[in-house]
Structures are given as C-alpha cells and as structure tokens.
C-alpha cells in the first residue's frame, strides 16, 4: 500500500532569527522534559494531540486528519513526531502506521492526509495518534504521549437505499498502476458477479456485504473509459462504474529552439502520446526562460514561439514543462542565440546567359544581419549526375554552371546556412532550365540489306536514332547521298524526315557509296559511309552452331589477314515474324569475339548471326554464320506422320513436311515408338518404358534429315500404336498422340488378286450372254433343233454309239393319208368306234421301259404332229399346238417330260370336240389296208386298234424290248409302259 503525504501547512521556511530563538527555547523545553521524565513516567505528556477530527474526501479517496497540540505555551515551538495508526473494519486491524514529523507552534491546527487504495466507502476506518518530541539529535528512546481515542470514518451509512454500490466512481489512474474496486451489497446477496469489459473479475470477501477486486497493471483501453459493472444473481440491478486509465505522461523529446530572423525563437519538441481523457484534459506545456524569468503557456502541443528580447540577450536557458492531472515532467535547454540560426529558404532564382554548355544562376537570400555571412550550397541535377558547389553570400548569390550538355534539362537548387556558426541548412529552393541545342556530335549508326529485284540492286538502309548526348537536339532529317562509284550516274541526294529509322533505295548501279548524316535545327552530324559492292560476298560460309548463355550469345571469329576497319554482327531479333527486326553491332578491328545480348531473345527461338568484316574501302564481306538458341527447349510438337505401304508385316512412316529449322532446339534425330500387345522388340529397336509405365519398342533415327522409316517384323492381323517424336539435347517431344494401325490378313491380298479378275470375267460373260442371247439361243437351244447341229448328238455319238446316225428324209417311205368322214351317231360301242377310227400312237421314251441302263432320247416329229394335232377323236394324247421351247429342247429328264405330257393331255381332253373330221396318220410300216375302213374286222387284236408309228430311226436291238407273245402282231416297238397307256 502506498500513501501520499501532504504536509499542507509547513511549506514556508522560517526566518533564521526566529529559528535561533526557537532552537534555544526548544533546548530549554527538552531539558525540562527530560527532567520531567526522570521524575515519573506515569504522567501523561503535556503536548499530546487533541481535538482529532477525521473527514473523508471520496473524490480523492482521502482521509483528512485535523488536530491540535495540548498545553503548548505561547510562542513555544517544537519539532514533534506524530505517530498515526489507521485500522480498517475494526480497531485491531491496523493497516497503516506512519510517523509524521513537523514543527508545532502554539495554537496551531495540524493537518495530515492519507489516500486509501481501498475506496473508503467499502469499509470503516479507525484512526488514532500519539505524539513525541522529535529527539533525533539526542540519544535515548523516544517518549510517546498516550494514544488518542479511535476516531471512526464510516461512509457506508450515507450511501443511500440502493441494494448495490460499486466504488470508486469515475476514478482516474495512470496506465500500469494498480486499482482496487469494491462493491457494497445491502441486500445480503452472495452471488454477485463483477466484470471488467465483459470479463469476470475474481475478488475476495472483505466482509459479508463487501467484496474487493484488485486490478493490477491496468491497461489503457479507450479515452472514454473502461466500464466495470456488477450484477446480482437475481433482479436487474446492474451497477457499474467507469475507470479512466490515462497514458503515462512522457518527457518531451527533441526539445530544440532556433531563429530565422533574430526576432522570434521557434521551439519544437516531440510531445509523445496524448494523455487526454474525459476526466482529464490533455497535458499542457509551459516554457520558462530562467535568465529573463519569463514564462509562457504553449497552446500547441509540439511547438511554441518565444519573442526574442529587443535588448541583446545572447544566452537562453529554457525549461519546458509538461503537466497533466497526475504527473509533471520537465526538460531544459541552454544555448546561444547566434548558434541557432536557421535561415529561410533562398528565393527569386534566375538563369542568365544560357548556352549549349553553360548557364549562370542567381538567387536572393533573406538577410540575417549585416554582420553575418551565409554559406549557400548549389546542386545541379542533369543526365543522371549531381554536382555540388558552395558559395558565400551576403545578399545575392550567383554561380556559373559550365560543361553542360546541349539540349538538356537540368534541375538547379540552392540552400543556405549561417556561415559563421553552422546550425541548419535552410529549405531547398529549386528551378529547372534547359541548355540550347548544338549540332549532332556523332554519325548515325547505319547498316544495310542489299537485294536484287528484277536485275536491279535495292538497298534497304537501317539506322539507329542518335542518343540524346549525341543528337544535341531534336533530329529533324536524315540526309542520304548516293554516289555511284563508276561515275556514270549522277549522285542522288535524299532527305528522310525523322523519326524514320530506315528507307529502301533502288540503285541505278550496285557499286555505290552511301553517306548518311543526321540534322537538327543547328547543324548536321558527321557522315556515316557505306559502300555497296557489286560482288555478292562470300555466301558459301558454313553455318556453325553457337550455344546461348544467360548473358547472351558468345560469338567469335578468326582475325582477318587483310586489313579491316572493323567487324559487324547482324541478326534478327524476331526471326519468326517478318520483318525480322534487323539488329547489328559494330565492333572494332582488333575484336574477334563478342557477346550479343538482347532482352528480345526468347528461349526456344533460333537466332541466326552473320559476322561481316568491313574493309578499308567500307565494303562489308561475310566472315561467318552462326546459329543457336539462347536456351534450347524440348520439342513441343511431334511431326505429322503419314503411314503408307501397310502390309501384314510392315508399314512405312513418313514426315517429309517436318522442318528441322524452325524447332525450339536442334533436332538430333527421331525416336519411333511402337506399342504392341506382344511386347517383343526385334533387332534395331530397344525396349522403352514411357511415363505411363507402358512398355514399347523404340527405334532410333540418328539423322535429323531422315524423315521416313519402315516398321518391319510385324504380325498379321495385329494392333499396333506408333509415335514419331524428335529428340534433342534437352529431351524429346511429347508422348501423347500415338497413332493406331492394324496389320491386315496375310492371304487377303492374294485372294483379292484372284477374286477380282474372276468376278470381272463372270460379269463380262454375263454381259456378253445378255447381249448375244439371240445368237446363243440359236446356237444352243433353237426352237426347231437341227439334229445335225445338236451337240447331244455328237455326245451320244462319241460316247455311246459311234454308229448312231440321223435318219435322212429321203430314206423315208412316204406315207399315205386317208381321210375318214364318219358320223358320230353311228357308233354303237366303244369298241366299234375305236375300231373305226384310226389310231394314233405317240412315241415317247420312258425310263421304266428300259431294261438297259442307257438313256434313250427321242425327238418328236412335228411334221406329223402338226397334222394330227387337231385329231383327238380317239382320246389319245394330243400334241400341243405350241409347245414351249423348253419342252421342245433336249428332254433329258424323264420327269420333266412326263409332266409336260400330263399337262397337255389334260388340256386336250377338254378341248377336242368329238365327232369332228380328222386327218389320220397311217404308219408307213403298217400292213396295207385297202378299201373302206368299215370293213375292218370287228374284233381286231387290241394292239392293232390304232395305227402305230414306228420309230424313224434305227434303234439298236439291245435297247428295245422284245414284243410280248400274243399281244400284238405288229412289229412296232412300244416304249411306254403298259400301265401308262391312255385309251
């Protein structure tokens, strides 16, 4: 627990004379006191405190004590010690004991205050005191008076009727200090909880109605205070208080004073954090000067103006005091005014006599008195450089800048300080100016490209714009003069306006000298000379590869035996995009290597460099060609592969269109990957495992210009996948797009070779047959077959019976034809009728009749059939009037024949009317019958009822069946079976 002692009455020192008198009196009193003590200690001390009164100030949580000293004689004055005891809650609980020493006079009311850490409303306090003469200078124990009676300080009785109170109210403390909060409950509730910004606090019970919370190192939360509140478990009586935590007042930092005009002093400092709160204003600042004794209250928090005394005061001793409700802090500063001069910034800067290389700057300064000299610092910024000069100035300053660049903007600035006692520079004052233009100092850097168009030389000139230090102004024109070396043509003069960086010139003659100059408003630059030669130069120089690095392309070449004025390297920065952005680099005659670097170089782009030597006649000739990549990249694409010649055992891959020149790296060759189910790799390939763990065969092609490959040793009817990818020093192309192929069957080609002609031939024959159907019909199956032309005949003749011949008509005996005209109604019986009608026998072959295996093919004689077709009176099988050709052809099949007969027969039965007159045929071989047929016997033998036709060809005996005995007397041969005879 801390306390603040506030001796309110003993602040002023006594005069020395009074002190001497008092000291004498004090010694006399002390001697008498010692005597008194030696006589009897039981007697009370005559100067005991009395009339002790205690009052409470709740605003500062202070106990104020007020008392007097008993029996002090008039003009008597002692230095006394008062021992004060303070108890809390009960008298035996002493919480504070303090000895308060002071000088006591007669009839003096003494005061003493004590600030309680615990709010006084939270507990009763009891105070008592006793006194003793301060005998510090004399040996022996101190003799105390008796204790005064206990005085009680109790604020709780005046609190009111609210059930709950929280103390202290609106207390102001510094950040980091310790605070004690308490609540007083009059409702005897024990379940009261208290919170600090929503966080519950843990307290201790001081008595049944009072709890105390000790907050250590309280933090600053906000300027509007920290809410602390308590709420009982029941009811809604939330009570609270606000604790105002102030930031700790800091000592002012960087306290400094200076003058610009010897009229006022400007004192500045860093105030630190603001301690302003609702319960406390921000800290105030007071400036006190000890020599003059003047004091001023500084309203601003960080600076203050002090009027310099009109009389000559050189030395100043300032005390700056910062003060708030809780604390006070001070800093001191002693200085000589002339050492704290901070001049004002110069003004009115002007530039005179500005030429291309020089200028004069003038400025003015604020005077600080005629006895002082200013030191001015002049700085010049231009072309990335800074130059600095110091100039002494009384009133006006001037400085000449020389060695300037033409047509260049410069920034000049100046500042000044006290030249006698340097304290601080003034602020800068700056101004810009630009030098005048001059003629360009350098010839433009020129290069050319020569080509022949329709037999005429065309030169394309390129030049680089002059840099600012070279141009010395704005370039307006580029002048070109063409002089033909053979003097046959007149020189040409051209003027190309800026900012062109090239032009194309058709030349009358190739051999010419071109001079290029650049002009600005002041003059012309030196000329750059190029000679265009008739000779094309050494174009057969072999190209070499060069490897780029991070710094560029290192190029080197052999020194030339003949005298050269220099070398030149040219390249295209955009080789893929025409125009290729031609670049060049001029090098000295003794240089045989260089590094070409450019921000435009990109990885994976092939750059071609050409190195020229420049002869003394300014004629360039090609020395070397280099090609390379700044960084090689793995191929991003694979060739477009065409597959041809697919057989059951091989196919051919081709990628003729793949350009090795335009790839992202140098192509070293190709890998052909082949995937198959079998997984076997033949000679010439090796197994390779792809990134997806697929095993395949890899063929390697080392020649980048070999762009065909034959994959062999394949299996017929097998599925393969293949990929052709280029390989380089930095890797292969992607393995993503395998092409698929299935080999054909091994015999399919052969079959196709046979089948196609066969089908073609058949088709040809069918077409021919269709076109020549009539001819074929006549030849093969005419409607009336010619026996002599029948192939069947030749077949039979050749195979079965060479003696079989065709019967000749002239060999036949002519038949006689009888015409019978007989009425139908006269028929009496079938037998009679039949006997009267001529019979008709149609000779047909039947297989059943043959006893021998050989077929018997017969031909119907239509000559007779035609005559007998209308005669059906006897019901015999008629001959159809029109038989289809098929039935009239070679009837080799007995079934077909029978069917035809059966059909015709049925038709005949229904169609032929009975009783008509018919023309009967009489066999030539039958026995002649003369006279009327009615004369025929009534019962003729059955077989002889009809006339029979004898076969008109010779039939071998072996084929004919012998006639059955008694069945017929006729010699004719019946080929039909008996059961198949129709009557």
């Amino acid at each position, binding site marked *: 627990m801390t306390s603040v002692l506030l001796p309110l009455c003993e602040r002023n020192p006594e005069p020395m004379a009074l002190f001497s008198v008092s000291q004498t009196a004090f010694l006399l009193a002390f001697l008498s006191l010692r005597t008194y003590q030696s006589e009897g200690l039981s007697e009370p001390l005559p100067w005991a405190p009395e009339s002790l009164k205690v009052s409470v100030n709740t605003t500062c949580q202070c106990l104020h004590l007020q008392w007097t000293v008993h029996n002090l004689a008039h003009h008597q004055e002692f230095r006394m010690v008062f021992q004060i005891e303070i108890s809390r809650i009960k008298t035996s609980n002493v919480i504070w004991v303090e000895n308060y020493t002071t000088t006591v006079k007669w009839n003096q009311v003494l005061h003493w205050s004590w600030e309680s850490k615990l709010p006084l409303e939270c507990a009763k306090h009891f105070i008592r005191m006793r006194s003793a003469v301060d005998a510090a200078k004399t040996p022996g124990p101190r003799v105390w008076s008796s204790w005064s009676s206990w005085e009680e300080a109790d604020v709780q009785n005046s609190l009111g009727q609210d059930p709950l109170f929280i103390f202290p109210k609106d207390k102001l403390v510094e950040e980091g200090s310790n605070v004690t909060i308490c609540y007083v409950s009059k409702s005897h509730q024990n379940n009261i909880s208290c919170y600090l910004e929503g966080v519950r606090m843990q307290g201790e019970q001081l008595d049944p109605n009072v709890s105390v919370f000790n907050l250590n190192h309280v933090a600053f939360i906000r300027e*509007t205070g920290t*809410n602390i509140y308590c709420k009982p478990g029941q009811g809604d009586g939330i009570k609270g208080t606000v604790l105002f935590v102030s930031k700790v007042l800091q000592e002012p930092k960087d306290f400094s004073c200076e003058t610009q005009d010897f009229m006022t002093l400007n004192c500045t400092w860093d105030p630190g954090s603001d301690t302003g709160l609702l319960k406390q204003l921000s800290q105030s600042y007071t400036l006190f000067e000890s020599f003059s004794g003047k004091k001023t209250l500084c309203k601003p928090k960080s600076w203050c103006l002090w009027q310099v005394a009109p009389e000559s005061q050189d030395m100043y001793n300032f005390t700056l005091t910062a003060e708030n409700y809780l604390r006070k802090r001070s800093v001191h500063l002693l200085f000589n005014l002339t050492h704290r001069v901070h001049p004002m910034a110069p003004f009115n800067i002007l530039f005179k006599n500005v030429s291309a290389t020089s200028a004069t700057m003038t400025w003015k300064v604020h005077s600080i008195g005629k006895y002082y000299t200013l030191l001015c610092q002049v700085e010049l910024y231009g072309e990335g450089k800074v130059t600095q000069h110091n100039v002494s100035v009384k009133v006006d300053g001037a400085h000449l800048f020389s060695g300037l660049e033409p047509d260049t903007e410069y920034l000049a600035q100046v500042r000044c300080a006290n030249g006698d006692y340097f304290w601080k520079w003034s602020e800068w004052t700056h101004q810009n100016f630009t030098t005048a233009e001059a003629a360009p100092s350098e010839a433009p850097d020129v290069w050319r490209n020569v080509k022949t168009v329709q037999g005429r030389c065309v030169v394309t000139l390129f030049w680089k714009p002059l840099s600012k230090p070279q141009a010395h102004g704005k370039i307006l024109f580029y002048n070109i003069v063409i002089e033909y070396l053979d003097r046959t043509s007149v020189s040409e003069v051209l003027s190309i306006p800026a900012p062109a960086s090239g032009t194309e010139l058709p030349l009358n003659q190739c051999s010419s000298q071109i001079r290029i100059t650049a002009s600005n408003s002041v003059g012309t630059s030196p000329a750059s000379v190029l000679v265009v030669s008739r000779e094309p130069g050494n174009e057969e120089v072999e190209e070499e590869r060069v490897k780029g690095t991070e710094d560029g392309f290192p190029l080197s070449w052999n020194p030339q035996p003949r005298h050269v004025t220099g070398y030149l390297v040219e390249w295209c920065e955009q080789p893929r995009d025409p125009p290729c952005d031609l670049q060049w680099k001029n090098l000295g005659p003794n240089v045989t290597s260089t590094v070409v670097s450019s921000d435009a170089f990109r990885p994976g782009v092939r750059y071609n460099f050409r190195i020229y030597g420049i002869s003394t006649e300014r004629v360039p000739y090609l020395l070397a060609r280099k090609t390379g990549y700044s960084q090689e990249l793995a191929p991003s694409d694979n060739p477009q592969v065409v597959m041809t010649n697919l057989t059951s055992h091989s196919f051919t891959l081709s990628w003729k269109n793949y350009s090795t020149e335009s790839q992202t790296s140098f192509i070293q060759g190709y890998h052909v990957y082949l995937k198959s189910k079998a997984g076997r790799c033949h000679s010439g390939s090796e197994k390779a495992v792809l990134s997806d763990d697929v095993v395949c065969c890899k063929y390697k092609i080392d020649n980048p210009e070999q762009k065909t490959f034959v994959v062999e040793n394949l299996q017929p009817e097998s599925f393969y996948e293949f990929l052709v990818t280029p390989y380089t020093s930095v890797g292969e192309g992607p393995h993503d797009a395998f092409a698929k192929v299935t080999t054909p069957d091994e015999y399919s080609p052969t079959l196709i070779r046979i089948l196609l002609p066969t089908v073609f031939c058949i088709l040809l024959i069918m077409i021919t047959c269709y076109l020549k159907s009539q001819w074929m019909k006549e030849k093969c199956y005419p409607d009336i077959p010619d026996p002599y032309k029948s192939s069947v005949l030749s077949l039979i003749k050749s195979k079965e019976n060479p003696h079989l011949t065709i019967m000749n008509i002239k060999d036949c005996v002519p038949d006689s034809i009888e015409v019978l005209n007989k009425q139908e109604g006269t028929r009496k019986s079938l037998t009679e009728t039949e006997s009267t009608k001529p019979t008709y026998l149609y000779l047909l072959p039947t297989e059943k009749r043959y006893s021998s295996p050989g077929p018997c093919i017969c031909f119907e004689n239509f000559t007779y059939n035609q005559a007998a077709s209308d005669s059906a009176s006897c019901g015999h099988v008629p001959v159809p009037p029109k038989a289809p050709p098929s039935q009239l052809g070679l009837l080799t099949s007995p079934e077909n024949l029978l069917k035809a007969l059966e059909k015709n027969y049925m038709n005949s039965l229904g169609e032929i009317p009975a009783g008509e007159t018919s023309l009967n045929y009489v066999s030539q071989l039958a026995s002649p019958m003369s006279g009327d047929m009615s004369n025929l016997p009534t019962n003729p033998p059955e077989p002889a009822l009809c006339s029979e036709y004898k076969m008109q060809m010779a039939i071998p005996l072996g084929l004919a069946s012998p006639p059955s005995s008694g069945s017929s007397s006729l010699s004719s041969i019946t080929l039909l079976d008996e059961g198949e005879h129709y009557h």
Partner: protein
Amino acid sequence: MKVLAAGVVPLLLVLHWKHGAGTPLPITPVNATCATRHPCHSNLMNQIRNQLAQLNGSANALFILYYTAQGEPFPNNLDKLCGPNVTDFPPFHANGTEKTRLVELYRIIAYLGASLGNITRDQKVLNPNALSLHSKLNATADILRGLLSNVLCRLCNKYHVAHVDVAYGPDTSGKDVFQKKKLGCQLLGKYKQVIAVVAQAF
C-alpha cells in the same frame, strides 16, 4: 395583445428546452383565450402524424446507436440496463379523446425533449467521437421541437389550450458516468416503446 401572444410560444420553447428544469404549465381553462404567433397549418394533424411516423421510424436506430456507443455491458444487457423503467414518464392513453391524447402527447414531447437534451450534452462529453450518435440525437431533437410546436398549435386552435402542465426527468449532471449512460439508455428504450404507441394512436 399581439405582442403578448407573440411571446407565448418562444417563452414556452425556452422553458421546455432548459436542460433538466422547467416550470410546470397548468392546463388552460377551455374558455381561456389562446393565440399563436403564426397561423397554424391547415393540415396540422397530418403533419403531426408524419412527424410521429418519422420519429417512430428512427427510434430504434437511435437506441441501437446509443447502447453500442456506451460499450460493454450495455449491448449484452439491454433488459437490465436499458429497460424502459422510467417511473416518472408521462402516461399516454391511446383510447382517449383527441384533446386528451394531444395533451398527453405534449407532455411526452416536453419530457423527451428535456431528457434528449441531457443525453446529447452527456454524450458529447462521454463519447466525443460518436459523431453518428450525436447527429441522430440532434435530428431527433429537431423533429421533437417541430412536433411540439404543431401540437401546441392544434391544442390552441381547436381546443383553446394554451398551457399544459409538464414534468421532466431527473437531471443527470451530478451523476457518475456509468449512471449517466444507464439513464440515457433507459430513456431511449422508453422512447422507442412509447413513440410506437403514440404514432399508432394518431
């Protein structure tokens, strides 16, 4: 007579807006003369209704702004710290006659005006950076002032009431900071509750 009448309204206003104090005004007898400085608007009741609706529409926002600015424990203990436990708040009977309702409204507005003045004064000290709260408090006070004038006009013109006894809330100037915050919160909670009923009644 005109001079006398011209001084009535300003006198009333001055008395009403004095923070924490005021002299109660007796209800004027019905037959007493009553005059206003300016002629009342013909559509006075509509204006009163609109002003009440305007106050009702902004009361909740004002309440929220207030308790948020006070910090913990206010936002989380609204029922205990900001409950409408204002014992001496003037009553209002929505089912009364228009004259009764206007008289009661006059008392309420007078009470609110004085209390809002105290709150505004306290908050400018307690929460000097809560500018939106200050703005809302000022806007509400402005509307209340206009409403008071209109109600008085109506009472005077139609019912010939020139004086109404009014009462004011406790003066908070001597109270501790926490108590000021709490009383202000309770008043605004009560205001939010009452203004809704009043706006509905008109």
